């Protein structure tokens, strides 16, 4: 009886340690999964903000379409851009929209026809506020909060 009790007690003690390690392994696994999903995150749709298509033409994006923005988003006609605009007046690499220090910024990426913000052609990196109108080629876009 006494011996059974001792053996049982030791079984409980060892089970405690095994369980502690089980918890640890699961916690590490959770951490690992988290880091993996983080690496895959940029490919996921849905971003910090949207450019909503205001003005377009046949062959271009649909009106009202929401183009989601990431920390750095390149816009242009070329298929390699994050946002591809099918518009003859847009350059292959037209503009760059970025998010830093809690603000949105836009710059022209050396386009032929230029980038226009609220009716003014920009010559350097400019702040972009929510609600601002951006014109790239013949397409009009508006920055909206996600």
């Amino acid at each position, binding site marked *: 009886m006494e011996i059974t*009790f001792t053996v049982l*007690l*030791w079984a*409980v*003690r060892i*089970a*405690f*340690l095994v*369980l*502690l*390690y*089980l*918890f*640890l392994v*699961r*916690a*590490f696994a*959770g*951490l690992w999964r*988290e*880091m993996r*999903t*983080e690496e895959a*995150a940029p490919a*996921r749709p*849905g*971003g*910090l903000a949207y450019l909503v298509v205001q003005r377009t033409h046949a062959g271009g994006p649909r009106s009202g379409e929401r183009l989601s923005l990431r920390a750095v988003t390149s816009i242009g006609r070329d298929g390699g851009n994050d946002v591809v605009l099918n518009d003859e007046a847009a350059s292959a690499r037209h503009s760059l929209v970025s998010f830093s*220090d*809690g603000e949105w910024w836009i710059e022209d990426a050396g386009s032929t026809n230029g980038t226009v913000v609220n009716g003014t052609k920009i010559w350097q990196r400019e702040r972009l506020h929510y609600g601002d109108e951006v014109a790239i080629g013949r397409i009009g876009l508006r920055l909206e909060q*996600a």
Partner: protein
Amino acid sequence: MIRLRAVPRFAELRLLVVVAALLVLGYVAVVASAVASFSATPVVVPITFIGLALALHLFLVVRGTRGDQLLLPLALALTAIGLIEVQRLAPERLALQQLTWCAIAGAAFVVAMLFPRDLSVLSRYKYTWALAGVALLISPLLPGIGREINGARIWIGVGNLFQFQPSEAVKILLVVFFAAYLDEHREMIRSSPRRFGPIPVPPLPYLLPILLMWGIAMIVMVFEKDLGATLLFFGIFLAMLYVATGEGFYTILGAAMLIAGGVLAYQAFGHVQARVDTWLAPFDEELRFGPSFQLVQGLFAFANGGLLGAGLGNGMPERIPIVWSDFVFAAFTEETGFVGGLALLALYLVFVFRGMLIALRAPTTFLQLLAAGLAFIVAFQTLVIVGGNAKLIPLTGVTLPFVSYGGSSLVTNFLLTALLIRVSDITARVRGGP
């Protein structure tokens, strides 16, 4: 009010099931080993705690909290180990008291998840928080409410009923303030500092708080005789300065100032001398059964533990004085061995790593600094007390986060966990992820 949109948190729930089983097994082992007397406490404590854990989980689900699902189980696992150890080591009434503190900490967690509704309040009123922190810090020095316990004047109390260690709460206020302050002055980071030869001269917005913090740290060391808090406050500050600026020199400068202050204090003050002497030669004839008795007994406990430990409830940790607060790590390691001690440290590692990941991903500089500072509190405090137990550094009376007996510490650590989960929640919302 807050929109109720429940979000399932299955990963968290699965981990909590393991925590519950862990607590029950540990309790059974500890209680079955003590043949002395049976009472209702051993049944009440685990059941109440598991109920509390589930309640917190359900609260997060109902609140619609997204983001991290690891921190709450980790915090609760550590707290469960703390409860097991209190049951094992301390007088019975302390186990119930610790359980009460768990409930209060849980309530604090809920409140911190709900208020302030917008975390930017923390950065907007940063000087208010700083002022509150300083007031709390010096409150133990005030006659009437200040208490000196075990040689350190770091407690406030009303009558004999309620005692609180304000320096615990100050840590969080400090992190909030510095996150906001360094965020405000971050443009300094980009402009390279003026250099005096190879040495960068810190611009005034950095130099001023370095000096101020140094002064506060010295005051805490000299007047409140709290070496642990000194090390923590200054360490937190230096870590956040480094995270914000990436300038290693400031950290070296600050550390040098702290060491210089420490050397001066060693020359001038008895309580500092005593700590260092017991650390350097704990087995000294004169110290062995006097000031270094606790440390020596702790070292024996580590040795007794060996690789696999004496078995939970089977060691002799009660031979360490006040083992349930400062030496809980030594006691746990004696009974679960190197294997158990390592697992405990690994739990902290995961907690801190998770906190730092949250910091890296946070959408604004303020939230990044906030999360990094909070994670660093846990890391540094664990290092200081475990290092003190193991005679790696002089022993200072800080608590082992979540595990040590003590209410102020538990409440503070759950507030900290809540803030980290909130930052992660905000990040998940901004990114539109799960």
